[in-house]
């Protein structure tokens, strides 16, 4: 394969010959560099995808909750019209009032969030407490600490997702005048002033901003939170937002919320209230266990994946029950019994083709044949499992055939020569040897079907499922479909939940793959 051009060049002289060799070496190195950087790039993509998802999912690990001591009593909670004690399980309003009273006793005044804008906690957040109380009435009349997840907007705010903030402390030394009711105080007497020798830089920068995007500045003590309404020379004029004044507090902190009020979902007053409750220890971060133990909800802070997890499991069971036996039997026929003829070739081509048909086409098949023609229920795991079984079948067949094909011919010959029939040879001798390989292939095929989304959308599995499905005929959804549904949610609070669901799904897939490769290794050692 000598290139005539190259020969000519090397004849032009020793020097250019050296140059040619050098260029050739450079080309060699460039190609190698390019090639390895492409491998690196692919692995880097993998790392970026996993890391970004995991880092976001960490935000869903904890959740800010109200820690309140409640004393549910029959007198307070049993509606007038009700006769049965279990009716208090439906009295959300009563429980809501109990919680709000508790919160008010800390805040000392009604919440802004009571009347308008976002509520501090969703009305449904007390549902689990109400149910528990209705189920075991001995909780009545007992004072216990209860936890209620706060509204996702507040949760996101406290996690720093809604507004940019900076904090600092105003040390006592820099103060030269104590807080006192301002001379310019209104009738309410809520105005105070505080002065400094040196104003913190953040506050200076904040006050110099244009009016349109003026940040909100808060001054906080353990007992009260104020908002800065203006600056006069070296004095801050403050308006009390929440709490009681202590003339000589131990510590004074400030908080600058850089995102202007009009650009965020949470008002200044609400920021003051929620921070006050946090300082008072009423709002505390806690592990978000509800994520694993409840179904879907319209409120992000109450939503969980249990229903989808069970749905995925039911669907997987149906898929496995259908595709595994049929797939293995088909593989046995093709590998051990099929005559070499046109029909066999046709079936083989068919299987190879089906393996590459886009999954959504199977969804169309499910919608047209299973739902429309056979009238099977929409959104049910039985239909989802059937569709995924058809989708996984080619994979199972191909994997099982490979495993059967890998069985040594000697085993077959030995079995036949000792008088076994072909069927006995396959069932008693070939199949046991091929079993680990078949199981590996089956697990990998099922793992793929567990992550499948598109066909399930077409058979109506993208529905709101609050209750855990109890059978394959119930309405259900699966983990990937839930990921799709949550990822299209308008509120940003869905984002960490979606990421956390992805992490759960990936963990399941990794476990299945680890199991498969463990089996494969054991098999190879034999």
């Amino acid at each position, binding site marked *: 394969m000598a290139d005539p051009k190259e020969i000519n060049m090397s004849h032009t002289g020793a020097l250019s010959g050296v140059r040619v060799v050098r260029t050739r070496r450079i*080309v060699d190195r460039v190609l190698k560099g390019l090639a390895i950087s492409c491998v690196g790039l*692919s692995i880097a993509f993998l790392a970026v995808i996993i890391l*970004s998802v995991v880092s976001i999912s960490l935000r869903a690990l904890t959740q800010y909750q109200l820690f309140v001591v409640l004393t549910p009593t029959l007198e307070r909670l049993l509606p007038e019209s009700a006769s049965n004690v279990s009716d208090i399980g439906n009295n959300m309003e009563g429980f809501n009032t109990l919680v709000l009273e508790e919160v008010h006793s800390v805040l000392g005044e009604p919440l802004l969030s009571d009347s308008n804008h976002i509520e501090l906690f969703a009305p449904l957040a007390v549902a689990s407490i109400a149910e528990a109380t209705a189920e075991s009435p001995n909780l009545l009349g007992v004072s216990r600490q209860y936890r209620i997840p706060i509204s996702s907007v507040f949760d996101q705010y406290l996690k720093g997702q809604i507004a940019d903030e900076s904090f600092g402390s105003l040390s006592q030394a820099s103060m030269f005048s104590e807080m006192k009711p301002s001379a310019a105080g209104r009738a309410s007497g809520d105005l105070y002033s505080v002065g400094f020798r040196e104003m913190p830089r953040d506050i200076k920068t904040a006050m110099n901003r244009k009016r349109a995007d003026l940040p909100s500045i808060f001054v906080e003590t353990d007992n009260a939170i104020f908002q800065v309404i203006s600056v006069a020379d070296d004095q801050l004029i403050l308006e009390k937002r929440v709490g009681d004044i202590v003339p000589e507090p131990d510590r004074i902190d400030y908080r600058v919320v850089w995102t202007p009020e009009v650009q965020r979902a949470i008002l200044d007053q609400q920021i003051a209230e929620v921070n006050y409750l946090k300082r008072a220890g009423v709002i505390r971060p806690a592990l978000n266990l509800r994520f694993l133990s409840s179904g879907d909800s319209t409120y992000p802070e109450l939503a969980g994946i249990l229903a989808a997890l069970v749905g995925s499991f039911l669907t997987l069971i149906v898929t496995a029950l259908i595709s595994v036996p049929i797939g293995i039997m088909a593989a046995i026929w*093709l590998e051990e019994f099929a005559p070499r003829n046109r029909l066999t070739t046709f079936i083989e081509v068919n299987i190879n083709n089906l393996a590459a048909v886009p999954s*959504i086409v199977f969804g169309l*098949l499910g919608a*047209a044949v299973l739902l429309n023609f056979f009238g099977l229920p929409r959104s049910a795991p039985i239909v989802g499992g059937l569709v995924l079984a058809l989708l996984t079948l080619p994979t199972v067949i191909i994997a099982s055939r490979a495993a059967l094909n890998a069985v040594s011919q000697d085993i077959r010959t030995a079995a036949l020569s000792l008088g076994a029939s072909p069927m006995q040879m396959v069932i008693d001798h070939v199949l046991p040897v091929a079993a680990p390989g078949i199981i590996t292939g089956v697990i990998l095929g099922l793992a793929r079907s567990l992550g499948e989304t598109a066909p399930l*959308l077409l058979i109506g599995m993208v529905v709101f499922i609050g209750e855990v499905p109890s059978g394959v005929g119930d309405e259900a959804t699966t983990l990937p479909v839930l990921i799709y549904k949550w990822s299209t949610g308008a509120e940003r609070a869905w984002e960490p939940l979606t990421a956390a669901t992805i992490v759960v799904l990936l963990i399941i897939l990794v476990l299945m793959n680890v199991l498969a490769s463990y089996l494969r290794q054991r098999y190879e050692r034999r």
Partner: protein
Amino acid sequence: MPFAWYAFVLLAAAGMASYTAGRVQALFLKFQSGKALRSSEGLHGIFILMATCLPMFLGLAVLASVDGPIVRGALVSELPERLLALPTVQLDQYLEQLWYLTGQSDVQLSDPFDDAARWRIVALMGQVRLVGGGSIVAMGLAGYWFASRFQTVDAPIRDYLETTLRMIFFASAAVAVLITIGILASLVFQGVRFFAFVNPLDFLFGTSWNPSNNQDFGAIPLFFGTIGIAIIAMAVAAPIGILSAIYLSEYASPSFRRVAKPAMEVLAGIPTVVYGFFAILLVAPIIRSLARSVNQLTWVPDGFLAAQPNSALAAGLVMGIMIIPFVSSVTDGVLRSVPDEYREGALALGSTRAEMILRIVLPAARPGIFAALLLGVSRAVGETMIVVMAAGQRAQITLDATSDMTTVTAQIVSLLIGDSAFDSPRTLSAFALGGVLFLVTVIFNLIALRVVRQYRTAYG
């Protein structure tokens, strides 16, 4: 589903009874004749069990799929004129509601007729299942009676069993053909119904897609979006996939290969919905802000790039990442099947490694690489979740990749994701689109598989 439990219990009971009967019968024969059985008594039991339970199983499957339609037909024939005069859609809805209410026995219906009709469904269902169940038991008895006549001391029961098993195995393999037929039938049947509403030429060559008014079904914008996004994806996947495969098969040490190859294949194992989330979370916002900063350059006209929150570019790039492992693993296999003599020959003649790869190995592997790319394109065209989540819903023809576009698959999902009444052109158009998709991917796959097979026989 109590019906499934009844069916299961019935089958289990029939199975145990028939196995025991077959076995006892065989033992009886053995002692009566005093000779050894040709086939063991266990096989006799299994033989009788299969003869009894197989017809029952098939009968149950048939009953489960036809009981609904039969009851429905019977009910419709009993409905008064005023209900039958309703349009089909409303009648369907009414029946569906009644059906749902049969399970809610504690709910009292206000309309006495509806209440009666609801209980009529329960009664009819009971009758159908009673008759069906009775005939299934009769079928089981018939199977038992038929098979037990073959039970003699020297009956080749094992041969009978093996023939039956072989037939079952063949039937399993034939399921793959059935699936293809099912796909074809549903696409063709619904597609034909769609083309009764819309001229096929208008569908294939029309440039306006707006299914919500049940009128504009010009699919060209969808084809454009699909091809455009596939091109973007292949622009990422082809070079990275092929170069990675070159490194893995030509340069990498075996130990590096053992680590890197599975790591790359993990990319193929990530569910596509995760890629979609990644696209809307990270890639689309980056592309949008990049496009905005391009728009702010002085020499660029205002609003030159659309800079949409969803963009064809975001979907295409992420899809490219998804396809890398498909391209690289097929290419890797192809490169490794190029005989080592070629490499040794090239190196012996003084070529560098790069020259060996570029001039000898790659040309030899060209058809296989072509097939790998074809499989990649077929993936890109059929990929759904990434485009549903990240590409947008607007059917438009534009060369600006930062604007949102839609694809065939994304439209199929948006057409069928809600309620699907199978009689509007809107719903049916999804099947016409699916038909085009199926045809294109099957052709690509067939070509690719053929090329790979020819390639294997050339070097095999």
